[in-house]
């Protein structure tokens, strides 16, 4: 019938267009039918098909993902038809991941937030549609009333996170808030702070070799990373190395799909990665395989590290700590040291521990002492922000309105000197705790590019805090568990409906994102929303906001380019990117010159900076957090989602229809649980009801639940996660340590 209908319509449409129905209506005296209706007359311009079929636009995936794919988006009739990876990027090479291919479903999901809406009673589900004007008025009225009542805006808080990594999104909302005055910001990172600091202590910066250079490695350790799920494009470079004879070892407590594709798989006990690295280092010392030449020329503190290893570390000790046989540790260590070049890719999971930063420093040390730093095919790879030197306009240029009162940091305020005001910064990894103790209290919260209720620990406490707000504004594309608690939700655009520019924290490509379709419904980009707020603030109270009042997303994107970006990428203008993505013009090997950014200018086994921040100067081992319940719970990324994004789409639900807890057969047996049983995972912080899947892929002491937000499902792993923080992160993240979300504990029982 579909085919029949199309063909019939084609001839009929053609016939009608020749006759011009509006003329017919007028001639027949029925023109009144047009008045008061919705449809309006137009000059018939022929079928609205794009000449030559689909038109291709350059796009960039903006989710918080290693791969940050350069894409091509194909549009016909003003509709996004399909997307593919851009072959001009040798990283993407024409492919996308499952999530990337689902983008048209995301754009055209019936579930998108369509209009500004106001909830009558927080969490009641009673929503009224309002105009943008009414929404902005309500927001501005509230901001002004807080300012009037409190005399400052520290009661106004912003939680802008990494749900949309377009460069303007990294800048505009913070710019608006600075333009309003000194406010409260949720800061820090849920992702990588402990490992990030560790690399800063060791190298003085966090820069990795080009991931495409993995193909040159002779030995690869994938340490706590699962690229078969989380960075599929990097897998081809790992396979290329294997084809050239490299050995690939996966170290992970869970038998992941990556582990299944490797030559060897090691499963250390949870949180003992540092012990494993140090045990390997000791064995390399014992065999005389340390690269003493490289260390002598390029490193500081190796003698002290060697002394520590000889006094405190043995392979047998490492075996007892990790549960991996001593002979295996010794063999892997020897293989790694002898393979030239060898590299370790350090994932973000293993540093989400109370000893996570130290674990990363230990792995860095292992790579460095074998002379694999600064080598083609080598390196201790973690991530990079080398390509991120954009203007971050207008955030970078904003000042609060004259006379604004803000937070006074006692550590920075010198007696007798003029008061120095700043924003108040709270750690998002302890958001509930920080909100509870905040004085002055947080009265209004704006959430954008973020779903804290599905991402932050201690969710039950979070909800209590959110319910105590005067106003919660949520800007999103979908109705998340955070939006459920909002007073006002504002619909925002997908990347296909706005201009953006993107870089990765892993590879070195730069890609532009052209607007290729009109925004659906009443969605607006964050750039426009911010400008609307600023404009209305100034109408209501002149001079109350210094942010731009008239700004297009494209102008904003253009102003984020600068000479540094041009030079680095070999472009003269942003317009060069309309021809395709470009790769940074740099040595693909980081630290090849042996010049490090540490205080000594050398690789630092012994870091005074680490000691300054309260850590051992050496990468010493520290035992993990003691269990406070029967099982360790792991909550890593799922294959079909990115944090709480994508998994709500129907295409993903076809493959991954419901959340599960994965439990080892021996543990399941002891709890009388079989696959398919509904179970309760619980601890002193909360509980989740979830279906059990019994599998050998997880260790006996472990329960695994993938983090996600499922459509129409209350499941939320954050219910059973507390807000313990990692050892490191305070150095580079404004005093905010990273989360220890892979070091959590709970029990389970059949329901």
């Amino acid at each position, binding site marked *: 019938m579909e085919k029949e*209908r199309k063909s*019939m*319509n084609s001839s*009929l*449409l*053609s*016939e*009608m*267009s020749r*006759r011009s*129905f*509006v*003329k*017919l*209506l007028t001639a*027949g*005296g*029925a023109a*009144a*039918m*047009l008045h008061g*209706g*919705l*449809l*309006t*007359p*137009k*000059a*018939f*311009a022929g*079928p*609205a098909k794009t000449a030559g079929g689909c038109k291709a636009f350059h796009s960039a995936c903006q989710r918080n993902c290693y791969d940050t794919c350069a894409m091509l988006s194909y549009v016909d009739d*003003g*509709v996004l038809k399909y997307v593919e990876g851009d072959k001009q990027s040798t990283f993407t090479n024409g492919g996308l991941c499952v999530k990337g291919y689902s983008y048209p479903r995301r754009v*055209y*999901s*019936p*579930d998108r*937030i*369509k*209009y500004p*809406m106001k909830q*009558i009673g927080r969490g009641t*589900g*009673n*929503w*009224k*549609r309002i105009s943008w004007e009414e929404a902005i008025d309500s927001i501005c009225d509230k901001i002004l009333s807080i300012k009037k009542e409190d005399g400052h805006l520290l009661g106004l808080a912003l939680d802008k996170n990494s749900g949309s990594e377009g460069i303007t999104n990294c800048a505009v909302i913070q710019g608006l808030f600075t333009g309003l005055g000194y406010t409260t910001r949720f800061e820090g990172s849920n992702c990588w702070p402990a490992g990030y600091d560790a690399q800063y202590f060791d190298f003085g910066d966090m820069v990795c070799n080009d991931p495409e250079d993995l193909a040159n490695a002779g030995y690869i350790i994938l340490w706590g990373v699962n690229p078969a799920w989380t960075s599929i494009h990097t897998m081809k470079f790992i396979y290329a190395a294997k084809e050239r004879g490299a050995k690939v070892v996966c170290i992970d407590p869970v038998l992941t799909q990556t582990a299944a594709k490797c030559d060897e798989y090691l499963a250390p006990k949870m949180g003992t990665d540092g012990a494993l690295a140090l045990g390997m280092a000791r064995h390399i010392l014992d065999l005389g395989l340390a690269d003493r030449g490289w260390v002598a020329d390029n490193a500081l503190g190796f003698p002290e590290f060697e002394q520590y290893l000889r006094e405190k570390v043995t392979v047998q000790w490492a075996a007892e700590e990790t549960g991996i046989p001593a002979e295996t540790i010794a063999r892997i260590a020897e293989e790694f040291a002898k393979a030239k070049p060898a590299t370790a890719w350090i994932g973000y999971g293993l540093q989400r521990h109370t000893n996570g930063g130290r674990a990363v420093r230990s792995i860095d040390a292992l790579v460095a002492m074998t002379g694999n730093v600064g080598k083609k095919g080598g390196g201790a790879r973690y991530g990079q922000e080398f390509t991120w030197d954009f203007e971050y306009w207008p955030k970078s240029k904003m000042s609060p309105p004259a006379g604004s009162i803000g937070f006074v940091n006692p550590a920075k305020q010198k007696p007798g000197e003029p008061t120095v005001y700043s924003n108040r910064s709270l750690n998002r990894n302890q958001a509930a705790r920080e909100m509870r103790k905040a004085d002055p209290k947080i009265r209004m919260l704006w959430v954008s590019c973020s779903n804290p209720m599905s991402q932050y620990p201690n969710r039950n406490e979070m909800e209590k805090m959110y319910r105590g707000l005067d106003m919660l504004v949520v800007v999103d594309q979908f*109705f998340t568990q955070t939006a459920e608690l909002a007073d006002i*939700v504002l*619909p925002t655009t997908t990347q296909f409906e706005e201009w953006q520019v993107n870089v990765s924290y892993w590879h070195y490509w730069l890609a532009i994102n052209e607007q290729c*379709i*009109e*925004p*659906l*419904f*009443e969605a607006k980009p964050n750039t426009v929303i911010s400008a609307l707020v600023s404009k209305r603030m100034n109408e209501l109270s002149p001079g109350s906001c210094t942010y731009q009042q008239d700004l297009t997303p494209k102008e904003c994107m253009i102003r984020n380019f600068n000479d540094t970006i041009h030079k680095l990428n070999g472009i003269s203008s942003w317009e060069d990117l309309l021809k395709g993505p470009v790769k940074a013009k740099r040595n693909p090997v980081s630290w090849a010159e042996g010049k490090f950014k540490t205080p000594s200018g050398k690789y630092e086994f012994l870091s005074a900076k680490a000691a300054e921040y309260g850590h051992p100067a050496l990468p010493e081992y520290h035992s993990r957090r003691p269990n406070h319940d029967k099982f360790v719970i792991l909550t890593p990324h799922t294959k079909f989602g990115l944090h709480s994004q994508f998994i709500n789409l*129907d*295409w993903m639900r076809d493959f991954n229809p419901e959340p599960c807890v994965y439990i080892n057969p021996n543990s399941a047996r002891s709890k009388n649980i079989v696959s398919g049983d509904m179970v309760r995972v619980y601890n002193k912080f909360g509980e989740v009801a979830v279906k059990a899947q019994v599998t050998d892929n997880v260790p006996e002491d472990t329960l695994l639940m993938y983090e996600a937000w499922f*459509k129409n499902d209350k499941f939320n792993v954050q219910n059973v996660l507390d807000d313990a923080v990692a050892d490191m992160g305070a150095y580079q993240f404004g005093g905010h340590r990273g989360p220890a979300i892979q070091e959590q504990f709970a029990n389970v029982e059949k329901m």
Partner: protein
Amino acid sequence: MQESQHEAQTLASLRDFFIAQDGAELEAAVGRLPEDLKSAVPAVPDWDAAEFDFNRFFVGPRILAAPPYASVYLSPEPQVMGEAALEARRIYAALGLQSPFDARLPDDHLSLELDALRIMQGGLSHTPSEPLKELRDCFVHEHLNVWVPLFARRVRMVAPEHTIIRFMADAVERCVESVAESKGRF
């Protein structure tokens, strides 16, 4: 002629109902129903509460219980701006008409389609036109009368708290079905 006026009034009322932005507009749209239909309208004690229910079904921000877009029902998998939306756009264009919302509202929104049907019916009642009649029949039989019953069934299945929602969904199903059955009328 009276029959066509009744039909036009019904279509206009239904159109205005399903695109209403608040309780007052819902109430006003129901108030424009022909008298015989209006007399059957269930009592609505609180139009604000009805508006919450209406938004739960058709507007958001939560996942819609019954999205009012043809594509959701006619596409192989539910989505908006599918082929059905483009088909509706082409039909409007062939009539010399267009949606005032451009691409911001999918062209196959129920209210736009009801408006198109109302205008086509009006034209045919004044001026017989064989191509228009064929197009109308095609639009009704192979488009509207395929998805609107599915839409109305979805509303009934999810069971709105306020009976006015179900009443109007049933009404739109009956109205489309009635036009389909009166194929030879104009």
